[in-house]
């Protein structure tokens, strides 16, 4: 054996050994990173949990929902269910709310949940300017402690949707009065919920089960929120087993295309009808042609909703004719979804006086309008706008598309600098009142969310009547609003946005949440 061959052998051995060592290192390290997940549900979120003060509006909904509980829960189909209040009674035509509080409930720091804790919490938000968008806050008069487990709330007028408001995540949920600084400043997130925060950083949060929780405890010991801003990475992490749960509109959104990709890769995907509606809004203040109901009707019948459902949601979204899906309480009588009929649309435009071949004109003015789209608001909306552009051209309307980012949309929508735009209704538990009042009542400042349609003379009285209707007349009053919108083609509901979630094979018993603001961990058990 010559010297050279010995050198070669030594080199080969070293190469082989280092390779084997490298592989062993990677396997061991990998085992270390993935071990210890037994009993831990890992959920992907798009951003850090942030400031979880339940009386502020900055934190991640899902994280707040884990720790803080309301008086009532919003159940499937809008059913109001007991939580920290076991019973309630509306008296004095809705101006008085008598609450019976749950006994033997403690905050995670040991402080008792009682009438004084309720009063202390209410005083941190009710009646303040920052909460004036809620009827309960705007119309609040006083709170009276009857005894340790009974409180009575008084309002100047009956607040519309009061019980629904008390199910919101913020600012109505309960923080431990013991957890704040001497001056009352918020210090740490301490609630009565089944999870307490153990760690929080920019890369995620860790929650551990609260053993003194008053109700059924979660089926696993730890819940981790992992910040994964990139949707492709979230999907890969789920497939690789690094994450157990993704989805939801506000947790870690999953598009229908992504859901389909995961489904075809064998991942468990849950797609259910949601409670948000995608609506095309008309700004008749900006385009005179849109003042004419015939033009709006023409647009309504000139749209192929099934194609939009296909483009945005791979056909998973149900096409819409109503403002609200059936999952929203008091969503009203169902209307027939208009089938796309270009000839009918052209006839309507002719009737409205818009004539000619190609792009129609009236008094020498072409029928042209612009749609504003933000991919950040609705991923894929640019493609939908392109579908509309081609369909509008078919009936003689020139539609141009202006793509903007989130911040620009937030400037242009309240300033009403658009002709057409996509809107999303507020979703449960805020609807139907949130969207009906916020998006249609012209006297109500709806901020950056803007208005879907305004008609001070005809629509406002109907909305006002619905707002002041008694519980018994509420449904019929809202129906009048829906009917007016439908008969005047004031809006073009396109589809009901589905609720999409995907989970790993470790997750058993998954059930979709009642609202997209909740984190659906309750029914989950971990296997393997």
């Amino acid at each position, binding site marked *: 054996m010559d010297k050279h061959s010995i050198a070669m052998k030594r080199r080969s051995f070293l190469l082989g050994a280092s390779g084997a060592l490298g592989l062993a290192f990677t396997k061991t390290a990998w085992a270390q990173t993935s071990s210890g997940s037994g009993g831990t549900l890992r959920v992907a979120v798009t951003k850090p949990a942030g400031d979880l003060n339940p009386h502020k509006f900055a934190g991640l909904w899902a994280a707040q929902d884990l720790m803080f509980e309301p008086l009532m829960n919003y159940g499937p189909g809008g059913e109001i269910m007991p939580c920290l209040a076991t019973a309630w009674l509306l008296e004095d035509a809705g101006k008085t709310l008598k609450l019976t509080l749950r006994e033997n409930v403690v905050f995670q720091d040991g402080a008792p949940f009682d009438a004084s804790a309720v009063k202390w919490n209410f005083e941190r938000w009710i009646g303040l300017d920052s909460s004036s968008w809620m009827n309960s806050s705007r119309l609040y008069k006083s709170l009276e402690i009857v005894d340790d487990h009974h409180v009575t709330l008084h309002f100047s007028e009956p607040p519309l949707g009061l019980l629904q408001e008390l199910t919101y995540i913020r600012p109505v949920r309960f923080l431990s009065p013991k957890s704040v600084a001497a001056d009352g400043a918020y210090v740490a997130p301490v609630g009565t919920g089944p999870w307490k925060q153990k760690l929080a950083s920019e890369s995620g949060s860790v929650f551990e089960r609260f053993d003194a929780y008053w109700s059924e405890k979660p089926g696993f010991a730890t819940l981790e929120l992992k910040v994964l801003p990139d949707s492709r990475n979230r999907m890969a992490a789920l497939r*690789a087993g*690094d994450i157990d749960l993704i989805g939801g509109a506000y947790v870690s959104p999953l598009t229908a295309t992504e859901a389909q990709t995961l489904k075809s890769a064998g991942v468990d995907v849950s797609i259910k009808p949601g409670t948000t509606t995608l609506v095309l809004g008309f700004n008749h203040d900006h385009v005179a042609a849109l003042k004419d109901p015939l033009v709006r009707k023409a647009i309504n019948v000139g749209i192929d909703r099934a194609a939009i459902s296909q483009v945005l949601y791979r056909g998973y979204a149900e096409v819409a004719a109503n403002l609200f899906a059936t999952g929203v309480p008091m969503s009203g009588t169902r209307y027939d979804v208009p089938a796309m009929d270009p000839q009918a649309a052209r006839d309507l435009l002719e009737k409205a006086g818009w004539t000619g071949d190609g792009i129609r004109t009236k008094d020498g003015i072409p029928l042209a309008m612009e749609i504003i789209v933000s991919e950040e608001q609705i991923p894929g909306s640019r493609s939908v706008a392109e579908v509309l552009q081609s369909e509008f051209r078919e009936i003689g309307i020139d539609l141009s598309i202006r793509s903007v980012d989130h911040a620009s949309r937030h400037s242009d929508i309240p300033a009403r600098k658009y002709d057409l735009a996509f809107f999303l209704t507020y979703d449960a538990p805020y609807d139907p009142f949130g969207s009906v009042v916020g998006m249609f009542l012209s006297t109500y400042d709806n901020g950056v969310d803007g208005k879907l349609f305004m008609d001070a003379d005809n629509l406002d009285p109907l909305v006002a009547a619905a707002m002041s209707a008694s519980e018994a007349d509420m449904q019929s009053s809202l129906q009048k609003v829906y009917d007016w919108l439908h008969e005047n083609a004031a809006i073009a509901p396109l589809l009901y946005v589905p609720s999409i979630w995907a989970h790993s094979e470790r997750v058993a018993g998954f059930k979709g949440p009642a609202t997209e603001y909740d984190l659906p961990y309750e029914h989950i058990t971990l296997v393997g």
Partner: protein
Amino acid sequence: MISLISKRIWQSLLLLFLASVLCFSLVISAPGNVAILIAELRSPIVSKEDIAKVAEEIGLNKPLPLRYVGWLGDAIQGNFGISYKTGEDVGESLEKRLSITATLIAGGAAFALMGSLFLGFVGALYAHRMPDYLARGAALISASTPSFFVGALLVYAFSVALRIFPTFGYGGPISWVLPWTTIGLLPASVLSRVVRVGLEEAMARPYVLTAMSKGLTRSQILFRDAMPNIIPTYLSALGTQVGVMVVGAVVIEPMFAWQGVGELFLTGVRFRDFMVVQACLLIFITFFIVVNLTVDVGMMLTDPKLRRQRS
């Protein structure tokens, strides 16, 4: 030499100032009103009065030159202001995140350095033979593939299919491998061509013939004689590529859920968080200028001709 370096430092400072003015102008001229976004954080429904109040609070109503001078004065003292979105001190956020981005760029640069030298030498050593063609092909494919796609492929192959590396996180060396490879692959490919072409040119010089006549092997000549001749060119190209990696960090950090400066910058841009965007841009520009300055000095040290010419 020292006077040359001090001259370059002054030029760099001037460049930094001009770049900060340009960045400030671009950031404030972007459409959208940050006051609306901030007001939205305070209450879900915001009125026009709320927006006006926020605009007044954060000084959006002040004249632009005043806003710029105020920001620059604070930044020089290390005070980058408060994030409009999170309310956190931007300087503290940057401090926490700088080491993450530095790890990404340093690892990517090391990968690019080793990868490019390996591919370049293989190509030069086996010029116009199969290993050369393979190295060239690999470099061409890698150089033409965008980083986000490379990252997705690597994650799919090594995390989803083989389960060797984690899909995300900054949890130690094992989790650094894929981000380093993703960010370093493109520069490695570009630089390998610099090495390969440089070595080929150097191997055509007369001193190579002399070395061969002395009985040295091709590999010995490549390492000992040709390599030192391509160092200045290589350093210049490496400097440019490392500077460009900052852009890569903006894409790659969110992809692997690394909470670095690139990710902070991206979040800042989306939210119109001027304080964050300005501070990040200033960091990026400073980094770029420092890298170029280092490369210039390095080139002067390694190339006697350049040193004489400049002095």
